[in-house]
């Protein structure tokens, strides 16, 4: 469904993405793992044009775009099929939970208010926060904010959702609730790319794993193969270091 070839991105002379390829089919959940600074966030931001790639082509729903050259209209059309969930939630601070979800539907998609609200309520219900519809972001916990952000993403009925470390900004006791929501989405067949440091989540929920290090994709393979038949020493040592950390807790 989404295929990217030769994605490159530099910031001020240093190349952060050095030619990344990836491909994801409908219903796939691609977990993006890798050490800090490896370029995972940059990759995801380039995929939704929050950052403009220096090189690369993207094929999405059978349309091919040159990533550095694509115009505003193409990007806007593409974004109507995608959604993004940020590490720091980025809920609209001046809107209630319900308005956060309806805003894009009403303003960008010109949906009638009643229809947008019905759809938004269904989305909030899905993340278990229907009762918080009138709360402002500042009145919600981090975990609740992230679940509203996921409802906002889902309400647009995207073909693919990008998650950038959706639980990294959360207190440990709030992580589970958010991961449960994402897992439920996966079970419903939602296509997703999830940057995460939660290895168990990647192991249990994802169908494929992309391992990023130093701006390159060191591996892109089915989840089972990634964890069970890992041949690359670099990745083995990364996984071992995570196991150690979890052991310490």
């Amino acid at each position: 469904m989404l295929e990217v070839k030769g994605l490159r991105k530099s910031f001020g002379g240093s190349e952060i993405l050095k030619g990344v390829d990836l491909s994801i089919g409908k219903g796939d959940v691609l977990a993006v793992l890798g050490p800090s600074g490896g370029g995972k966030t940059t990759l995801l931001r380039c995929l939704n044009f929050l950052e403009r790639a220096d090189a690369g082509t993207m094929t999405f729903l059978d349309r091919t775009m040159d990533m550095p050259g694509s115009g505003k209209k193409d990007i806007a059309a593409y974004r109507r099929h995608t959604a993004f969930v940020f590490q720091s939630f980025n809920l609209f601070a001046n809107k209630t939970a319900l308005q956060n979800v309806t805003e894009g539907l009403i303003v960008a998609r010109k949906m009638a208010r009643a229809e947008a609200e019905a759809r938004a309520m269904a989305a909030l219900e899905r993340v278990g926060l229907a009762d918080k519809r009138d709360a402002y972001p500042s009145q919600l916990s981090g975990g609740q904010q992230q679940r509203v952000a996921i409802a906002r993403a889902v309400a647009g009925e995207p073909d693919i959702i990008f998650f950038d470390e959706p639980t990294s900004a959360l207190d440990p006791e709030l992580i589970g609730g958010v991961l449960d929501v994402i897992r439920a989405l996966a079970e419903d067949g939602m296509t997703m790319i999830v940057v995460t440091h939660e290895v168990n989540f990647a192991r249990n929920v994802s169908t494929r794993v992309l391992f990023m290090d130093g701006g390159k994709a060191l591996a892109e393979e089915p989840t089972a193969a990634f964890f069970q038949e890992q041949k690359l020493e670099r990745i083995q040592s990364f996984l071992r270091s995570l196991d150690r950390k979890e052991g310490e807790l």
Partner: protein
Amino acid sequence: MSERVLNILITSFPRILGQGLLVTIPLTVISFALALIIAVICAMVQIADVKGLKQIVRFYIWIIRGTPLLVQLYLVYFGLPDLGVALPAFPCAVAVFALNEGAYCAETVRAAIEAVPRGQMEAGYCVGMSYIQIMRRIVLPQAFRTAFPPLSNSLISMVKDTSLAANITVTEMFMTTQRVAGRTYEHLALYAEVALIYLIFCTVITWLQRLGEKKLNAMNGGNVIRA
């Protein structure tokens, strides 16, 4: 206090206050409203980095902030007629106050917009909104909350600065007071009286500011200003 002074104060009070309500307040309100429009446009031009326009805006802010308000009033009212542009006193005062305050408020508004976290804009893009839509519905309302106290400050300054319009023959409160004082020689009492009226005006604005802040806070669920 002698009976004469008391009488002068009592008879002049409605006259001065009346000029305040009829001239000072409209002059302030119209000028400030225009200043806000100028400020938002200038701030947006700078933030959106509109080539060419941005240089013009920087130049305008530089000129205004670098010269005294009184000199600006004289330039426009007494100077421009030499170029064939002769404005009546009141519109002239409105133009100068609006342009002057607009330059200062532009910086306030720009700082407030820049204080809205980048993620708000990005989240807007990701749900498909356009730059203008996000600005109008997400960023500016939040920036307005941040800018509201400093803008109220500017408004309070402006109420008092309108007394400078007396210099270009606008008969606002201060000029009215000057006239009475010139006739009666009761300077201390009359200038204290007009000072008191300015104080009342500013107190009312401060009170409205508190009310406005409460309302804005309620509309934003308590506190908007967070990282």
